[in-house]
């Protein structure tokens, strides 16, 4: 799912060539973002647009030859005139008098030409890794391969792939080689996949033609230099010193001749908008705001010793469980620190729980892009590839981090508590200078694990992500002031992080404290159980089977399978009463009906039903299964296919408690399911006791920091 959607999109017709644009946000200042086409398109800005659109109006354009724009094949259709004409047409179509132009790579030549010919339309120019002809110096591999551009080479390799014939016949080989070289930064698998995918939306023929068109009608060096020198607009150049496409000297000379500002990203390659989105976002904002000459705002600064203690709490909206346990921790924290003010940066469904508890939700929460919406959009059938879903959540994580960082820079928090706040943990390690306050990291699992279906490539990817996390913590131990594992050492999955990487348990024991499990609710006593059953209208001689599939639409398949099994179970166990909870996204009326089966859309205080049922049939989520474990209820659980956390981490933890019966959704037919329900319903179980002091322990660990 995208982190921000355009408010307007459209196409301009340029002599039969459609040029697509999108407009985001609103504001006095417009940013116009030009990708270097046709090798890529406007999605390269995905880490920037959601943040920038909260402050400015942002117009993005798909250059001719890629994205949602047309793909002309004539050289004449790819000249600087054609591209500058497209940009002007988009400015006109969007009613933009003038804009701050942001361009990447060779699109800067078009931006410079635009500013030269239409200076009234350009307020400023932000040149990222600029490739303006002649300036600085070309990388030697471009010089060396240029003479052979039109030849048919015998078994070309490496940079020799920069050849028209290779582009046309082996497009993917060239693209993969090129971006493999550009992403000099370690752990760039996602950026690499994105760049390759976007490039392959065009064709080798168009890419080759684009290159040839770019070189058409370029004036001589003196003219280009003079053009840059006479630019009437402020410039900011951002350039990685390890850029293999545009040598950093190109950026240096551009900054020099335009008399502008230069920011060098040391250790960065060509794709800084994708690989360093936080730094690029902040550089753009600072530059644009500086040139707007904002007045100083009235403000209040409170003397350090006069401040009340403040915590910012982030509770992951993925899954239903975090809100409950985080509220429990917050309440324990207030017992220890009665004056502590807690603000929550949170989103649906966590906010619903917080509002009921009258907690203070920070108003910036409304700017957060929906993580639960993204996860729901990634699921289909009884299947959620949660590792890939998390990877594809990259632009949402950047967008939400930028919101978080603004909040934390203004809020004066003593501590940030992030319960699986992935964006904070990741980007504070990537940008350690941005850390504010003490930082507590909570999680209930450590280590991405590959699903067998994913093969070697997925094993490589999970190991790469784990390695990055391990390196983060090794290099910047000061970012996590306290890391709390919600559980016990035995709950940690007995595997290694990947080939050549440490054992997950050994590493986690070295880098975490353990709070024990945190349920966020107290199981009923036997007397209470009887009372609850009676209140809920469950007779003692009934066998109540509760089926629940969480709040998203993901659970429909499981629900249908259980209902298909119902008639058979009912003949085996006549006293069976089945209560199915469809959740807000599944229409109860859309499901089959049977006598003895109730289907509810929503059940108030579901945990009470679960705590007193004779059997529960659930997915493999940690919160619900551990609630059932704590309440000593028999249950069948069906982890979502390809969900590594449910299939490995949760299953392993439940085994520690001897709780629940694991079932595979895909290998269980309704008959088998009926047999399992009949066997388990009403069975007396005796699981290991679930600790009840986890929230208190976690709160004590956090309180030591404040």
């Amino acid at each position, binding site marked *: 799912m995208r982190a921000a959607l355009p408010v307007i999109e459209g196409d301009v017709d340029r002599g039969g060539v459609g040029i697509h644009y999108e407009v985001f946000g609103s504001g006095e200042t417009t940013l116009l973002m030009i990708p270097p086409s046709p090798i890529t398109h406007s999605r390269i800005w995905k880490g920037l647009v959601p943040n920038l659109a909260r402050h400015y109006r942002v117009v993005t354009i798909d250059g001719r030859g890629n994205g949602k724009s047309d793909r002309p094949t004539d050289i004449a259709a790819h000249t600087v005139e054609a591209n500058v004409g497209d940009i002007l047409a988009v400015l006109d179509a969007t009613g933009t008098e003038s804009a701050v132009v942001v361009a990447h790579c060779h699109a800067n030549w078009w931006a410079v030409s635009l500013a030269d010919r239409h200076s009234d339309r350009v307020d400023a120019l932000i040149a990222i890794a600029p490739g303006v002809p002649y300036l600085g110096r070309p990388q030697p591999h471009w010089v060396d391969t240029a003479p052979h551009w039109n030849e048919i080479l015998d078994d070309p390799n490496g940079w020799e792939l920069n050849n028209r014939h290779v582009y046309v016949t082996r497009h993917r080989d060239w693209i993969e080689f090129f971006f493999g070289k550009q992403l000099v930064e370690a752990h760039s698998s996602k950026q690499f996949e994105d760049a390759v995918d976007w490039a392959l939306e065009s064709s080798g023929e168009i890419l080759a033609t684009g290159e040839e068109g770019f070189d058409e009608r370029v004036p001589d060096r003196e003219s280009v230099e003079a053009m840059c020198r006479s630019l009437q607009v402020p410039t900011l150049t951002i350039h990685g010193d390890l850029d293999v496409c545009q040598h950093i000297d190109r950026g240096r000379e551009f900054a020099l001749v335009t008399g502008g500002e230069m920011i060098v990203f040391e250790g960065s390659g060509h794709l800084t908008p994708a690989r360093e989105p936080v730094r690029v976002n902040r550089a753009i904002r600072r530059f644009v705001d*500086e040139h707007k*000459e*904002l*007045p*100083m*705002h*009235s*403000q*209040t*600064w*409170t*003397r350090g*010793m*006069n401040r009340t203690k403040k915590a910012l709490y982030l509770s992951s909206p993925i899954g239903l469980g975090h809100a409950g346990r985080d509220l429990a921790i917050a309440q324990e924290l207030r017992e220890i620190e009665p004056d502590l003010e807690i603000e929550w940066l949170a989103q649906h469904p966590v906010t619903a729980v917080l509002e009921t508890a009258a907690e203070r939700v920070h108003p910036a929460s409304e700017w957060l892009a929906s993580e639960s919406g993204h996860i729901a959009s990634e699921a289909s059938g009884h299947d959620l590839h949660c590792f890939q879903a998390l990877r594809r959540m990259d632009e949402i994580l950047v967008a939400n981090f930028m919101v978080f960082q603004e909040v934390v820079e203004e809020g004066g928090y003593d501590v940030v508590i992030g319960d699986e706040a992935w964006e904070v943990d990741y980007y504070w390690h990537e940008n350690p200078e941005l850390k504010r306050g003490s930082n507590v990291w909570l999680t209930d699992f450590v280590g991405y694990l590959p699903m067998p279906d994913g093969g070697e490539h997925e094993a490589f990817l999970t190991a790469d992500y784990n390695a990055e996390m391990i390196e983060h913590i090794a290099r910047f131990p000061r970012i996590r002031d306290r890391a709390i594992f919600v559980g016990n050492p035995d709950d940690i999955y007995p595997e290694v992080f990947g080939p050549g990487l440490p054992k997950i348990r050994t590493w986690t024991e070295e880098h975490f404290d353990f709070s024990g499990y945190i349920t966020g609710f107290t199981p009923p006593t036997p007397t209470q159980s009887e009372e609850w059953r009676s209140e809920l209208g469950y007779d003692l001689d009934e066998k109540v089977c509760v089926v629940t599939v969480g709040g998203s639409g993901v659970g429909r398949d499981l629900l249908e399978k259980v209902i298909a099994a119902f008639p058979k179970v009912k003949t085996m166990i006549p006293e069976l009463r089945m209560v199915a909870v469809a959740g807000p996204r599944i229409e109860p009326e859309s499901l089959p009906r049977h006598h003895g089966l109730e289907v509810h859309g929503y059940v108030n205080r579901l945990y009470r039903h679960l705590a007193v049922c004779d059997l529960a049939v659930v997915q493999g989520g940690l919160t619900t299964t551990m609630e059932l474990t704590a309440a000593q209820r028999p249950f069948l659980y069906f982890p979502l296919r390809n969900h590594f956390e449910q299939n490995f981490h949760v299953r392993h933890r439940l085994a520690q408690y001897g709780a629940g019966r694991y079932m595979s959704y895909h290998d269980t037919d309704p008959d088998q399911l009926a047999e399992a329900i009949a066997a388990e319903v009403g069975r007396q179980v005796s699981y290991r006791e679930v600790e009840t002091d986890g929230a208190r322990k976690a709160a004590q660990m956090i309180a030591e920091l404040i």
Partner: protein
Amino acid sequence: MRAVEPTSSGYVERSGIRLGYEVFGDGDPTIILLPTWTIIHSRFWKMQTPYLSRHHRVITYDGPGNGRSDRTTDPERYRSEEYAHDAAAVLDACGVDRAVLVGLSLGAKYGARFAWMFPERTLGLVMIGPSLHLDIGLPEREAVFARLFEPSVEDAQGWDKYNVDHWYTDYADFTEFFFAQCFSEPHSTKPREDAVGWAGETGPDVLDAESRSPEPELGDREALAALTCPVLVIHGTGDRIAPYTAGEEAARLTDGTLAALAGSGHIPNVRDPVKVNLLLRDFVDRLAS
């Protein structure tokens, strides 16, 4: 040892009085840190000069009555207009045409007067805990001022010590009381000691004369309302000398920016120097851009 020595120093003579000034650093634009009530002298800017002079030319000087300047007991010489002319003379002596003015307490009154009299020489004005005649209805304070020239009460306590007669009787007792009020923040022993020490370099006769200086013809309220330069007001919400509401009013009258310092007292440039330094730099940087 001082954290930074002046780049140059000297005296300027104006209407019979020698005024000692010091210059630190040489960056543009120039910031002039004005004298305040002459009970203390220019060393009260000691937390600002080292930092600001790394980025700007900073000028400090002592007003008549304290520091390296001549003592005088002529009330006329303590008028706001005289202070404005003094500041102009110091700028002239330093070859500076235009500057950012920063004044604390009564210094804000002098700065505002300068900005009104010499708008072409004023880049911006910062008023810290401004002590101005704004007629905003502060009966308790007015009552204190009303007793200033009355005979002192027996065994004076609290604000009864704000009394010329008491100053002559027990000057040290008054200054200790007064600076305890100025530095109302806990753990302020050093700032109080410093200020009491600087107060000891002048005496009750000078303060007596200053107290009798006439108010300018055009009132502070009208002068502020007529200002055209950018204004920043910095004011502690715990200010016991110049109430915070006066700072709010000053910002409103000048269409200026208000930086409220929650929990701070009357002299935040000494007690919360880091925050004040950053505010000053931010204000000056925006003027320069």
